[in-house]
């Protein structure tokens, strides 16, 4: 490690002659040691050389994983002591995890991190790290309030991370091995989910605690949220609300005479499981969005305009350990040339188009209000967070905005909660997407799997 060499070097210079034996062996080191200082390296753009020893300390720590079940159990009976304890967990977890990601970014090729978008993300991360690491131990509710302010501030600032990363990746196409790139993206996105879950959960708990009609130790009813976790996500209602929202978007962006396909739901309609609602809405939204657009396009080319386009069939299957949602469309399938890039963040030959689209994703909350679409996601009767949900800008973008990362990002979310996302294409006919959800919160939860996912 560079920094340890620095420290060793400065130590060596102060050594008494009797300790010279070490120097005899590395006499070359000694002479070069005199050149190693903390002065910044003068390169073209003079990247700031920050003192790295602080980062090293945090990189050396390990992330403490947490599961959905733990999140729920923790929140069930909320007391001041628990809230403070949660605050301290957040206070140390966040900078630890961010430190790891910063280290990852530091090891990317120079040319990649110099890309303006990636550089922005790097700076955002570094500033967040700096901010969080300086927070002192939380002892009172006031301390917690201050922490919550810092957290929401950061959440807001980091809303643009996903589009920026994606843009950066596309621009760096060819400069970096695609597999490495995908691995990096997967890690950083998984980590982002972890951190936001931890942060948002804490904010939500704090808000609950501080709300006027809350009494410590009160039992929460089933229709409630425990923080961000919706205890009883009913698959059918989530699908229905996503379907309504995506159909509406499709309706508004296609010509008036174009028929938008119906979405039929069958299977075990009572299925429910605890989940983070915004995640589920994002995944299902992406899958439905892909299906609807494919059916509209295919039907436009191959079908009669007077005929109804074939409906999209959603099947819900409930088993003891998981629930599976299958979305079957007849939208003509995926061209086989595109299959290799389906799950990759770097899209190969189709990069340029994606790049142009990414620039059009509304980044600021203000823009979203203009579209008035967020309301239709059916969250009016459910809990609306005071802070901007990180997925909202993506979930409600117009369907012709093909970003090329819906599938890989959805898969990151699905796998995050020990689930799975897979897609089978029948080229010339349609696509079947399978979302498998692990029914955490039940006694058989595999904490080991979750822990390994979450320790990032």
């Amino acid at each position, binding site marked *: 490690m560079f920094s340890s060499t620095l420290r060793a070097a400065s130590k060596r210079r102060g050594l008494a002659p009797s300790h010279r034996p070490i120097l005899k062996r590395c006499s070359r080191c000694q002479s070069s040691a005199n050149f190693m200082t903390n002065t910044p390296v003068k390169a073209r753009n003079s990247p700031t050389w920050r003192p790295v020893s602080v980062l090293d300390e945090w990189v050396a720590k390990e992330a403490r994983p947490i599961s959905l079940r733990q999140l729920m159990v923790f929140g069930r009976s909320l007391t001041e002591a628990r809230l403070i304890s949660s605050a301290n967990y957040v206070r140390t977890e966040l900078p630890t995890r961010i430190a790891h990601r910063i280290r990852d970014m530091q090891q990317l090729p120079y040319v990649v991190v110099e890309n303006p978008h990636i550089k922005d993300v790097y700076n955002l991360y570094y500033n967040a790290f700096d901010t969080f690491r300086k927070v002192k131990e939380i002892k009172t509710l006031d301390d917690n309030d201050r922490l919550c302010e810092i957290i929401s501030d950061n959440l807001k600032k980091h809303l643009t991370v996903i589009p920026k990363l994606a843009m950066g990746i596309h621009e760096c196409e060819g400069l970096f091995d695609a597999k490495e790139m995908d691995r990096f993206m997967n890690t950083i996105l998984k980590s982002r989910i972890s951190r936001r879950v931890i942060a948002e959960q804490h904010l939500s708990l704090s808000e609950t605690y501080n709300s006027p009609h809350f009494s410590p130790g009160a039992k929460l009813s089933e229709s409630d949220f425990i923080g961000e976790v919706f205890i009883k996500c009913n698959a059918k209602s989530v699908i229905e609300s996503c379907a309504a929202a995506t159909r509406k978007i499709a309706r508004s962006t296609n010509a008036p005479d174009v028929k938008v396909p119906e979405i039929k739901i069958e*299977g*075990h309609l009572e299925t429910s499981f605890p989940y983070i609602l915004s995640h589920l809405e994002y995944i299902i939204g992406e899958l439905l969005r892909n299906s609807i657009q494919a059916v509209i396009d295919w039907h436009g080319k191959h079908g009669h305009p007077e005929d109804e386009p074939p409906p999209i069939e959603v*099947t819900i*299957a*409930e*088993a003891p*350990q*998981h629930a*599976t949602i*299958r979305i079957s469309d007849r939208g003509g*399938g995926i061209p*086989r*040339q595109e299959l290799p890039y389906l799950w990759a963040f770097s899209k190969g030959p189709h990069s340029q188009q994606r790049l142009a689209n990414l620039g059009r994703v509304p980044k600021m909350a203000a823009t979203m209000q203009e579209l008035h679409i967020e309301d239709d996601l059916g969250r009016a009767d459910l809990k609306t967070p005071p802070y901007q949900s990180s997925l909202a800008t993506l979930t409600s973008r117009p369907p012709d905005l093909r970003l090329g990362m819906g599938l890989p990002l959805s898969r990151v979310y699905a796998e995050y909660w020990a689930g799975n996302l*897979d897609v*089978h*294409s*029948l*080229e*010339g*006919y*349609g696509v*079947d997407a*399978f979302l498998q959800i692990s029914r955490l919160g039940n006694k058989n939860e595999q904490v080991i799997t979750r822990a390994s996912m979450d320790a990032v």
Partner: protein
Amino acid sequence: MNIIARPGPRLFRLPPLRRIAQPWSSPRTLATHTRGGSSHSSTDYEVTDADIRTLASKHLHPLSLADLVKHGRPPLSEQSLLSSANFALSLLPIRLAHRLQALRNLPYIVVSNPNISKIYDTYIKSLSILLPYWHNAAQGRPIATLEEEIRFTNTLAQLVAQHTDTIPILARGFLECKRYISPAEVTRFLDEHLRARIGTRLVAEQHIALHFSSQPHWDPEASPTPCPEYPSFVGVIDTALRPATVVESCAGFVADICELRYGVRPLLYIDGQPDATFASVPMHLEYIVTEMLKNAFRATIENKSKEPVVVTIAPEPPLPETEILNIKGPDKEIGPFRNDAIRPLDDNAPGVTIRIRDRGGGIPPHVLPNIWSYSFTTFSDEDEMPGSSGSDGLHALSNAGSGVSSIAGLGYGLPLSRAYAEYFGGGIAVESLYRWGTDVYLRLKGIGKIDDKK
């Protein structure tokens, strides 16, 4: 558009190939030729280690459908027939030697098992029959007359017949050797062996089929005329194979068994594009479809579902012209199709995807990781009962040779089917919605060059 499988006799007419399984007894044999290889050199020629080593060190030619059709459509001219014979001769001994090599590398105690050693001996015997031809060819005397060709084809027929029961016998052998070899090693060996076997049999059967369908070759002066019976066939390949027909006939066959065994006859619908056709080996498709339908029907019955099994046939659209023809412009490979792979059959037929969807309740999560292995870790008396999903695959495999037409005892149908599907660059994927049903996706490629699988 929706076709329900009707009960009754199989609709699909099989090529005469099936009769090859019997030793050569056609009256068309020349009178002077004695039956079997016994008068020839099988017992005279001893295979040496050096032979095996030399042959095994040679490159294994990755077989493509184009290879099999490059000699032309039957009836073949004498020259083409001889060329086909020599082509087969150039491949087979090498393939046999590779298999022998693999067998020899198994642990001693495994190969000592009587069943495994029986297979080993069969391979040695087959190689010893072929080597004289091989050596002749190496010395500049390839198969040059029709007489020799007939003798050679006869030999091939024997080869095919001798190796028909390889799989059940190997299975029995590995089962008996459970203690001495790990399941992972067995899976690895069998995966490779079965795939290689597909290729070897295909080369042999293709030549035999071409021979049979080239009757006019008996008169060297006759000019080739289109074969009236199966105009779309080139040996064992049907260039106009209609998957829906295969599905219908296999469904009828499997439904018959269900009726016999369970008293219930599940329904089957075909949708998508039932009239799609593509070029493939009917035998392979039949095997795969039968296995898939066995699984689907059995699950449907056990789950007491009244819902039909739905088979969707989706032919792939052809790639746009600009992507296949790279005659002008930069010399770059831009897609899976290469110009030189498109031989006598000009129509570059893309493949087909077949989805089999049932409402049989899906595959239990604890079974799911094992569906692709020749699993023999769940050995129990349950094997006797129909439909035990944890049934011992290899055990069932070894029962299969007994000829009893049973629908239970599955466990090898999937890995073998996958071997067939992947052989020409396709594949099989299985998705289970536990407590609802299962979807199986079968992708098959048409004519084209395969990725080097071996």
